[in-house]
């Protein structure tokens, strides 16, 4: 069950988004890993290369978090119904789709995206899972704490370019 409702109407729910035309927003991705206590562990944004120079709309960054956070309910719900790690699109809010991936250790990977890109996101999730598992094996890293690693970020950006925006 998703919040699939007509896009036109739900647009009105946007918190404080200035009216952007939809084309301008296409191809944006927001990736977040959520820990066991619903705490964000890692965040990354991927913008298409042609928009990278555009000034970021900072006032809306919290909206991404809100949407991702709200989708957790549906992720948790769906986790019981499937044995797949990749849950595809679980939620939708305005133009944002939320895809999810649950690792064996119950870490939740969420991806906000405004274009459909099922395979790319799946690949990205798989690669990030791999990276995450390697990272988590570091004995100095405590599970569920924020990931502060240059290497991890670089990997994420690399896979983002490879599978999402590139």
């Amino acid at each position, binding site marked *: *069950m998703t*919040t699939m*409702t007509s896009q036109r*109407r*739900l*647009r*009105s*729910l946007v*918190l*404080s988004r200035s009216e952007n035309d939809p084309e301008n927003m296409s191809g944006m991705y927001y990736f977040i890993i959520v820990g066991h*206590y*619903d*705490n*964000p562990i890692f965040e990354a944004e991927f913008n298409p290369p042609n928009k990278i120079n555009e000034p970021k709309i*900072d006032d809306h*960054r*919290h909206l*991404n*978090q*809100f*949407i991702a*956070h*709200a*989708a*957790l*309910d*549906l992720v948790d*719900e769906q986790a019981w119904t499937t044995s797949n790690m990749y849950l595809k699109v679980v939620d939708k809010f305005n133009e944002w789709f939320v895809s999810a991936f649950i690792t064996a250790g119950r870490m939740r990977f969420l991806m906000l995206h405004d274009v459909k890109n099922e395979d790319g996101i799946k690949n990205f999730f798989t690669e990030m899972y791999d990276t995450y598992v390697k990272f988590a094996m570091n004995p100095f890293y405590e599970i569920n704490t*924020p990931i502060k690693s240059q290497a991890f970020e670089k990997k994420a950006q690399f896979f983002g370019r490879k599978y999402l925006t590139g």
Partner: protein
Amino acid sequence: MAQCKQSAPEFIQNAFSPHIAVLCSADAEVLCKKNNLTFAQLIQPFCRLGTEVHIRDPNNAPHTVHSLRIKVCDMSSTPPQQADVRKMLNDAVSGAQLQTGEAGRCNVKSVGSYDLQLHESTPWFEAYRECFLDVITPSDHEYLSHCLACAFVVSSSNTDPIAIFNSLTGQQLQQQQQFPNKVPRWFCPGILNYYVLLHDVVEGEQARAEAIYQSMKSTFKPHCCHLLQINSRSLQTVENMKSETSLPDPWSQFLPQPQEIQPPNPHKPRYFITWEGVEYDYLQSQDEDSLFPSHLSEGDLTHGQNLDSSSIMEGSIETGLEATETKVSESTSTSDLMMDHPLAFTAPVSLHEDADVCREGDGTAAANGYQDSKSSLSPSELREKAKLRAHGICLTSSDMDRLKIFMHEFVVRALIPWAEHQMRIFNDQLTSRKGLHRSFFSATKKWFGSNKPAGPVQANQNTSVVYTSEAPELQLRRLADLAFLFQMYDFAYHTYHTAKRDFNNDHAWLHFAGALEMASVSIFMLGSASQRQYPHHYMESAITTYLTSCRNIQYATRATLVSTEALKCRGMFHEAAMQFLKMTSEDTDLVSALFLEQAAHCYINMKSPMVRKYAFHMILAGHRFNKSGQRKHSLRAYSQALQIFKGKQWKLSEDHIHFTIGRQSFNLKQLENATSAFKHLLMGESKQPAAQQGAYIREYLFVYKQQLALDAGESCSYGRLPELPMPNLDVGAIKVLLGAHSSRQETVRKTPASGIWFDHDEEHNSKWQSLEERLVLSANNGVMPVAFRPTLRCFTNKTENKFSPATFVGEPIIVEVEVENPLLVTLVLSDIMLLWSFLPGIAGTDKPQLISNEVSTGVKNNLADEIIQTTVVKEVVLEGHQRKPIHLTLVPRQPGELRVVGLAYNLGTSSQNASAGLSGSNNTAKGGYMGSIYVRGKQRLEVQGPRLNITSEDKTQKNYGPDRRLDLVVLEEMPILEVNFCDFPDSLLCGEVHCIEIEITNSGRSPLHRLKVTSSDPTFFTFGSGRDLPKYPYVYQMKSVDRLDTSAVESSICDTNSRNTVVNIPLPNAVLKPGEVVSVPLWLRGNDIGGVHEVDFLFYYEPVNIQSKVRHRILQHKAVVKTVESLSVRATVTKPSTCVTRNQGQELNSCIISCELENLSQVQVQCPHIQELQITQVSCASPRWMVESLSISDQEGLRVGSRETLQLTLKGKKADSTAAEEFLFTEVPFDIQQISSVKTPCCDFFFHSVVHRKCKDPSKSDTPVPRRHHRPPPDFSRLNRALEINLTLIFLWKAFVAQENGQMKILVGQHHVHIDKVNTVATSYPFIMSNNNVPPLKFMRDLEPQTKSQPSLEVTTKLISFSFVHDQTVQHNFSKGICVVPVTLKLQNQSETAVDILVDTSKSSDRLGSTHAESTMLPMSYHTSQPMNSSFRWVGQTLARLSLGPGAGQHVTLRAAFCHPGIYNLNNLAVFVTYSDDMSQMISQKHSTPSIITLNTTSL
């Protein structure tokens, strides 16, 4: 979805209740106005029937109607305008608030890891719903809100009531026919007319009323007439009424509140008294009148009189629910609260007449009354006011009963029969038509499932169908509506279903949607009685049709309200949420907000609650509330959402929530809330950009300032500073420094003793501690006092802080606090000071009072400043992410206990960067800082001690020891030593001797004595000894040339160890009085190693009169000296070999000292460098040796240029007899002036170097090796003396140094070369003994060597030195035979033991091995058979045995015989030595120097 007061069926029933209209004549209105009510309002509280009534449907089947509610509308009232409607809705929502602190309404729900406090009810939503349903404009497509009946009301006092009735009826008819679209709308042409005769009991005439009533009955239908008697209490009585006025006011719920008389606070709870509340109130009134008679007693009876009456009448309209009776008392209190207005204003009236009653009565009322009576209003005016506000004051409870009876009569007698009748008519009409219809449509019409409602067709398709008002489709709808209104839901459903299909066929979308909606609601209302499932898809499509095809948002909203209620009731929360979300749109913020909130509630009420969806929708709702101006609701919604987001590290979201909460709280004047919300924005790691952070902090400061201003204004608990969140204080890194002056004025000439500063490294503490121990030991004659504790000046997190630091009155305490700016924006801290509390330790006062400086009043602060002088740091600017230490000083003026508790400061931020940039100059920028907004607050300083790790308990738990570095003990005044080094050089040449002066001052107020100093490098300085010290700035003491060359110095003065490490500084009278200054000369000598050297000085002193347990004080000084390489000396001593003088032979008691002097300095440009070194004197200090010059004229001096080497050879001579512990000084001057090397600076440094050398010598230090020896090794030192020289050469020099400015400077200095052994190279440059001679670690015990330890071979072969004395040239006529030359062999014992010597001329030393014991034992006869390899031969005594005492010398006379002329080496014999009694151990002595003899033949 939140729980509502009403259940879903109740709500739907109320939403769709029969409407009736009321039309009053003017005189009837007047009667009602006495009660401050209109007629419609008057009857409104009694519109719900408490009893069941019965109705028959068109098929004559009976139905029961439960608690039917009639809605009354006044015909004369005009419908509100669109703008008014919006305002009404807004007011309804904003008026309904949750009472804060009402615990009962808030329950805790745990979902997963979330513990949420939820408000179950959302009264604002219900209020909105009520209001919305009230104001919804009636539409043509349904008849639910159309008036079924009209009540005509005429007063009995009217002259011709019947005529008036007739005219009113006409008026109604006219309106219905001419303005069908005017509100109120009418259900159908033949509505029910009901005639009410209103009779005022007090004013009217009973009999006349009865008469008119009778005539009415005859004129109109009898069951449609009613005589209603009201106003049994006259206005006079009302004025005389006392506490009875506290009767509940059942009307207040139904009336719009007059805005101007709403006091802000007591008004609030009114909104909580919702439907049930009314009933409580009503119940109470009924309870009081529980014995109210069935017959109505007349007059203005008081309650007491009514009590005796009989039971309740059976058919009375019961408005109260039985179940709620238990809550009566509670409701009484609420009603009291509610009723405070009328009470408040009627009380003063009685106040004038009966004061004590008033006093007994409601206290608040009395209070209010006083206030009002003061406000000089005349009683009549008051009465007017009271009239304005109080409702139903003229109505007794019997009047109310009459009203109840009236409503019951109306419904049962008139309305229901009418409805039955009407339904029959409609049904008949339709059945006649239905037969026709049936043929058209299939017989499966009734089949529910197959006929799915045709979905909404294209939106652009217009509803072309326009029905006439009497069209059969609409008649069908009327029938259904009527059935629905009277709770015949099954019948209604079938009818709606039929109608729906008709409308669908006609594409009458509005009608279709309405029918769908109602069909669905009917099924719901049937509840479990129906076999059908609740068809929520009907509702879905109804809403969609309303929205898309009809664009009728109002009705879509209504359908949603009804539908969601039904869905909720069925537990279909998700669907309900979806429907709510569907109705949120861009243009209606209020509705969207309410619906979003309801959706959120739906999510949380699901079987598996969706907490995060709840949070998200709450935030969305909060946002929309904000947009629609509902600040309180917005704040509440955000606060709800915050519960979920709190502490989960969704930083950006949290920031948004906190920021909004802050803003809203501020707007609502909840400054405290706002402050704490903004505070959250500033705490923790922020992900916001700098500009945003800047906005946050400005906002925070602004709000906080307002709050503080407000607090200061209203509360008297000023003085306690609020705690600020920023900047971050590193509490662990707090350093406390005692006794140091923050302002060290370093003049050009004087360098004050550095003491300890914050940059002091704790690792050096042990070093200082050992120095201090050394001093204390020396001060206490080598015994360490039991109570000794090393003095610490700087307390940090690495020091032991178990004990409170002791400080002294008048000495500053400097606390270093490190602050860090967590933000990217610049913070400005100003007026920073320490907060402290102080417990005076003055004896005699009964109880010392705790003093603190945390007060804001100036007077108190001044007082506090007298006790502890507190410095204030004006301003500290912290850039983004900057760390800065702040030094704050306290100077205690009284002994006691001082605790540093916190840091007070003004927190501000820089004003716009732009302005600072524009102004450019520093001044204005600073002004900008100061002018910007700031708040004063504090932060606590509490230091946690180190974690304990001793007991097992400590190890398993987390226990922390105390850390008392901020709890100081202030003791009585002590002397304070200040030391100034005058002209302390920052750079010296290696070995340079420099004289400076130190100034010792006692800046305290009590005398000190026993001044001592020690240093980490004792060779660095000397204070000199002896009386006649050279006058500053002369370095060396000169000596007149005529004095003796050699002088012996008692070395005992330098012998004690303490003398070398601890120096007593002589003081005049042994005491330094306060303020006294003593200057002492001090000589420094540059270290032999070039580079930068740190030298620690530790001064020790004691107060003369000891008051506290602190017995001594210390002063540290760390000097940094750079040394530049100058001279390097290498020296070797060789033993004499050649004969110096012919007659004496070789001087066996002398030696040759060859020195190589090298000027190491380099010529450097623009740097001080040595141009030339001049050796002025070489002195020798040795217990046994003296030095002599080999040349005669040395007076012109020896100069060594840069990078030049000079060879210098001197002769060493053994002194005749010296005591072992004495040093003999001999001097070889190369200058006109001779320096007395025995005198102070020179010999001091020499002694230092000797001691220093001894300390450094690794062989002297304890090594772990000797432990493994079974016995101490035999002492061979006496034997070793044979090679030992033990001589120190002191090279005194002058250096010509070119300074930076090109000027020449002459510096003097000295170098020492210690020569221990013969033939080894000694240097002035000390070798650093590396530790690699430590034996490798072995894990296996190796075998002890069993061999006897023996002195080294090197020593034993050189125990004896010998030389030959003979003529160098001998003339002999060999033709006469062989030549015999007498040779004297001089033997000198170099060792300090007696030795036995065997001189054997038959053996040549070079042919022999070291041990030839057997050969020495050969018989004499063999001598001749010795192979001859030289052409001379020893003759005569060939073997001599003799003993030599220590250092003794002897001659042995030998003869050598030569056969041929030539040059011979006479050194061809063997000398064996034994140092023990064992004669077998003879060791051959090495002596390789040849002794040449030349034999010339003479032909004579």
